[in-house]
């Protein structure tokens, strides 16, 4: 027993020594989403700058949790959504301000940069600049489920056991819109928001028997749809377009009550050890030619100005098929989440999950 412990301790020390050595060589530890840093782009970046990029795939809640646990250490650059930055920063102090002078702002689509900077500011300090944007809506197999036009159509009896969505806050928001409410307008009014949540909760509980499974990651969902086990789901647009490449019947549909628009950003963790590398990476991936590569790889569109002209035709066709002009105008963009709301939502989500 004792020798095992000693061996293990030695091993741990060894691992620690190796990792600390690696950090000393110039590396950028990137906390991001799947598909945002394709291998090809990482290699090009290393050729150009000599900096090695180490990618950790994550999601919004996980990013905040990871950075919170270390007080903002362990990563040099993170990519949370723009609406989740200011509350997390006020609560846990995990980011450091971004120096806009070190960002090549002419690489960005001006309106998107401006909106993100505004939403991620506390006082005169800016905590985020935009990178990738997209929407949540419906991914539908149009042959098997021709009538799905809005989120609530997922609860149709005809589709029992054939639909999927996540049990997370975007689903609550989406169903609220589909039920004719405006949750974003109620962000500042807790009583009103609680009333909306009650209504959404009732609908989602009622809808639960229809759900095959609450999906947890995009691969999970794509497999459910590929195998034909699920024919309609609430999901990200890029997932729908990815499936469209394989099967023309399946694609992303912008819901009648509006797709939910999100922008994922670049934010600097408070104890980032490679700030220079982080700025270099931001300015590198925002170049139109690099941004187009990211879009080609993952189907996500970026806030890079001029990249859309370089994106292949098929990709643009898919986008236009899913988003007629009216649907673009109807996108509901997430405003910053005030503190405290997520706690209310959490309880509601727990109750839906526990209901049998």
């Amino acid at each position: 027993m004792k020798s095992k412990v000693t061996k293990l301790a030695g091993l741990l020390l060894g691992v620690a020594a190796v990792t600390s050595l690696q950090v000393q060589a110039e590396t950028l530890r990137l906390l991001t989403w799947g598909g945002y840093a394709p291998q090809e782009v990482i290699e090009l970046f290393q050729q150009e700058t000599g900096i090695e990029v180490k990618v950790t795939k994550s999601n919004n809640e996980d990013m905040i949790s990871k950075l919170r646990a270390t007080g903002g250490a362990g990563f040099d650059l993170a990519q949370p959504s723009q609406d989740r930055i200011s509350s997390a920063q006020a609560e846990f102090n995990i980011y450091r301000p971004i120096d806009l002078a070190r960002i090549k702002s002419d690489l960005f689509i001006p309106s998107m940069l401006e909106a993100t900077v505004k939403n991620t500011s506390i006082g005169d300090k800016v905590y985020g600049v935009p990178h990738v944007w997209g929407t949540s809506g419906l991914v539908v197999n149009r042959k098997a489920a021709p009538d799905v036009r809005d989120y609530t159509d997922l609860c149709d009896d005809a589709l029992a056991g054939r639909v999927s969505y996540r049990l997370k806050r975007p689903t609550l928001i989406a169903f609220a819109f589909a039920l004719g409410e405006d949750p974003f307008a109620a962000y500042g009014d807790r009583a009103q928001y609680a009333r909306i949540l009650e209504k959404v909760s009732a609908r989602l509980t009622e809808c639960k028997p229809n759900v095959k499974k609450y999906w947890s990651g995009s691969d999970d969902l794509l497999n459910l749809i590929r195998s034909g086990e699920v024919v309609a789901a609430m999901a990200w647009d890029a997932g729908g377009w990815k499936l469209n490449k394989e099967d023309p019947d399946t694609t992303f549909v912008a819901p009648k009550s509006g797709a939910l628009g999100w922008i994922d950003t670049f934010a600097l963790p408070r104890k980032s050890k490679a700030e220079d590398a982080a700025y270099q990476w931001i300015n590198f991936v925002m170049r139109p030619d690099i941004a187009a590569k990211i879009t080609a790889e993952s189907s996500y569109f970026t806030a890079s100005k001029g990249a859309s002209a370089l994106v292949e035709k098929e990709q643009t066709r898919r986008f236009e098929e899913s988003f007629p002009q009216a649907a673009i105008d109807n996108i509901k963009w997430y405003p910053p989440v005030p503190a405290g709301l997520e706690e209310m939502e959490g309880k509601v989500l727990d109750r839906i999950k526990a209901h049998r």
Partner: protein
Amino acid sequence: MKRSQFGLGFWLLLAPLLLWLVLLILLPHVDLLLISLRLRSGPGTYRFSLHHYAEFFTEPLYWRTFLRTAIMSLLATLLTLLIAFPLAYYIAKMMRGRAKQLLFLLCLIPFWVSELVRTYGWMILLRESGVVSGLLQWSGLTGAPLEMLYNDAAIMVGLVYTAMLFMVVPLITTLDSLDDSLIEAGYDLGGNGWNLLWEVVVPHAMPGIVSGCIVVFMLTLGNYLTPTLLGGKDSLWFTEQIYTQFITRFNWEQGSAFGILLLLLSSLMVWLGLRLSGQSFTQVMGR
């Protein structure tokens, strides 16, 4: 003479173990307890409170999940024992030489891959477009695809499978040490198979049974992967609640309270198990 027994060498050799216990087990638990006893009163400020424990007892959702996890874990332990006992008896008592080693190895082999991979294996077998469903359709037993995943039975199958080895190994070791002549003597004295099982084999194997049960119960109670992946929308496992509180709700205080409660539950169950079976902890763990 006494002094030299606890000399420098002794302490140096003990140091890694002590460091391990104190730094990686004791301190985190103390911290967990402290976090669970505070309540956020404003951004970044906290005060002492039992709120998070009260929350557990007043919100039916939480204690129902807690109870469900405990009962399902007990059931899984029982099922594992029922399946593993005949198996272990067969390997330890009926087999000899190479065949015995081979069978033992066969029990081990699935554990050369990680739990995650094994669970995905079950998902491939049980899902609607999976192997079992395909076989049933091919043989004409069912007309339509059959969904066997995402229910409690699937969770149970996964849990029992995951825990099997930890029951089989202690059982084989204890059964191995049972002298065959004792069984023969039992028959000579006029006992039948049933008497022998209850009067000779089970009492002898008791330490192995209890230690297997304790390990399996604790593994099952603290399992996260299997219930979440195989249970789907109705999984509801207590560890999942802890994960949710920590990771998606940023509520470390509530999560810590749940963690402490889970620790208390498993300690209580182990104590009860030892009490009811009349075994002592040192005897059981020495096996």
